[in-house]
């Protein structure tokens, strides 16, 4: 095939893709702004203080069996701090991650060492999964660090055919050190819960997709209990996060977010 032909085909495919994906998109009625929708979605995912206990399953061509990881995470949104403690596998049991903006520390009980993870490592895999350190600490806030644009309403979402969703484009502010070129999110029009996110790089190439499944009500919120992350360019890779327990508006003691707590290992 000639290069010229290739270019033409790539251009055609490239321009066709968004219109295919958003085939059933219709304009949203005025009333809610994109930022309001984004705020509500964020609110439905994170309370001011949230505790999550979760199990993570990592699939990769490298592995004959999926790798299972369990952890509990304490998140103080307003204080911009969080704490995560590994509970499984045995090798990582007690390993902790403490984020107090803008620092991220990790403590490894087996060698009794605390490591400050530099910003350059934010895009590295977290615990061998397809999640990054950045995902763990949510260093970038999807409401504060992005501009939001409402693309329209879709009657049916790929992974939730029976739900209607706002399609919101998140574009990072120029001065924020954000890792994505843009994020497109499908946010349930009635339930405010995010159903699907597509993460693109600066060149508008789809890097990964997060699908939020098993949506059930928890404390007046609709909450996804199964997150499925699929990186686009890594065939055979998939990370699932199953939420075993989630507590919004928990009262988390300040001592949780300290280096002393980090070094305690498992409680």
């Amino acid at each position, binding site marked *: 095939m000639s290069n010229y032909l290739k270019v033409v085909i790539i251009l055609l495919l490239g321009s066709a893709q968004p219109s295919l994906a958003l085939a059933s998109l219709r304009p949203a009625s005025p009333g809610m702004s994109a930022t309001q929708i984004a705020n509500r979605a964020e609110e439905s995912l994170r309370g001011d203080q949230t505790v999550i206990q979760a199990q993570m399953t990592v699939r990769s061509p490298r*592995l004959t069996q999926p790798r299972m990881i369990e952890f509990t995470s304490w998140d103080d949104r307003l204080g911009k701090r969080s704490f995560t403690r590994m509970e499984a596998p045995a090798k990582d049991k007690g390993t902790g991650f403490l984020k107090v903006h803008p620092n991220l520390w990790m403590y490894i009980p087996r060698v009794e060492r605390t490591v*400050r993870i530099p910003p*350059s*490592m934010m895009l590295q895999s977290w615990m*061998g999964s397809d999640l990054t350190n950045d995902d763990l600490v949510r260093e970038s806030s999807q409401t504060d660090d992005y501009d939001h644009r409402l693309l329209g309403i879709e009657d049916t979402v790929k992974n939730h055919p029976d739900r209607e969703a706002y399609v919101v484009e998140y574009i990072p502010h120029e001065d924020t050190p954000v890792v994505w070129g843009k994020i497109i999110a499908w946010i349930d029009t009635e339930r405010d819960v995010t159903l699907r996110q597509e993460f693109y790089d600066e060149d508008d190439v789809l890097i990964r997709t997060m699908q939020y499944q098993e949506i059930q009500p928890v404390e007046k919120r609709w909450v996804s209990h199964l997150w499925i992350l699929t990186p686009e360019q890594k065939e055979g890779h998939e990370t699932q996060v199953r939420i075993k327990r989630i507590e919004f508006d928990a009262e988390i003691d300040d001592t949780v977010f300290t280096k002393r707590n980090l070094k305690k290992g498992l409680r």
Partner: protein
Amino acid sequence: MNSLEFRLAWRSLGRNPRRTGLTLAATSFAMMLVVNMTGLSNGSHEEMVENGVRMASGHLSLMAPDHLEERTLEQPLAWTQSLRTHLESVPDIKGFAPRMDAFALVSHEESAQGMLIRGSDPTRENTVSEIEDRLTTGRFLRQGESREIVLGQKGAQTLGVELGDQVLLYGMAYSLESAYELFTVVGLVRFPDAELERTLAFISLEDAQAFFVYADRVTEVAILAEDSYQVEDLQNRLTQTLSNGDLRVHTWQEVVPELDQIIAIDKGGMYLILLLLTVVVGFGILNTILMAVLERKREFGILLALGLKPSKIFKVVYLESLLLAGVGIVIGLAISIPMVLYLQAHPIPITGNAAEGISQLNIEVSITSKFRASNPIRSTLIMMGVAVVAAFYPALKASRGQPIDVVQNA
């Protein structure tokens, strides 16, 4: 060779020693220039290649298919005894070193730095990278010792560690498990490239394979050829004997194309200068012979009057020029080859600001020459070519004289 013409040519060269001497000097000096320029350029390029490839992947690099493009642990190369034995048996291989490269976070107290961890065989690494020569303190890794690490001087500075300190390596194993281990700093090295010095660390291949869960596998094998001119030949031989589908032999040009490009640009510049030099030399020879011919108008006129054919005169003058060029070339070679050999044996190091600028390309520099048989041969051919072209017009001019005019005007 017709003896009459040759004798005539030889005698007339001897008849005016000053003129002959000047032309000879010009030719041999030009020859010296060409030979030395080529030698210097060969020297600097080969030094660039040597230094560049030693720290990179050697002259040749064995990798699993696709590893050159992907550069992840997903393309392992089996490091077997038979492969090792084979490499040991191939002539023209100066050294080879298996390597297992992967990223990890190296930390000490509050500081941490992402680094490229190079798992290398302590007994073999030096045969390719001459890492021992780069040590500033301590020693390189030792066979039989484990959990030792050698850092770049700048890397150690960033971490705030000294010899004997422990650093924590944290990374992701091939099995996707988290990998962490304490290593003791046993040596510090300097690299010409500051970035490399900050972000490259050496641990033993065994440790790396255990740390990253990569037993019996490596990411590449770096090979240093005895002579950089044999690289392609060696590549062909290795490809023929080793290719069994799961291994590729890459040249340094494929692995570090930047270096190749720098050299190509530099070579282009040298060829341009050589071309200009050749033109200048050509005109010099043309000028000298032309003047000599014009001076001898009367002589040629008489020869013609005596019945010598114009074509013979043409031959005589042409022969003179070629003889001059030939002798000049021999003298030039006799002087310049020892010069090239001397600079090859005694390079002049470049220091100060100039070195600073160049060393960013991860190349250590000195003014050095390299003698290659192709150099005098090519230079001789160039100079002979120039003489053949430049002598044509004066020879023609000499043979075209009219005896009657010449004798009358004289």
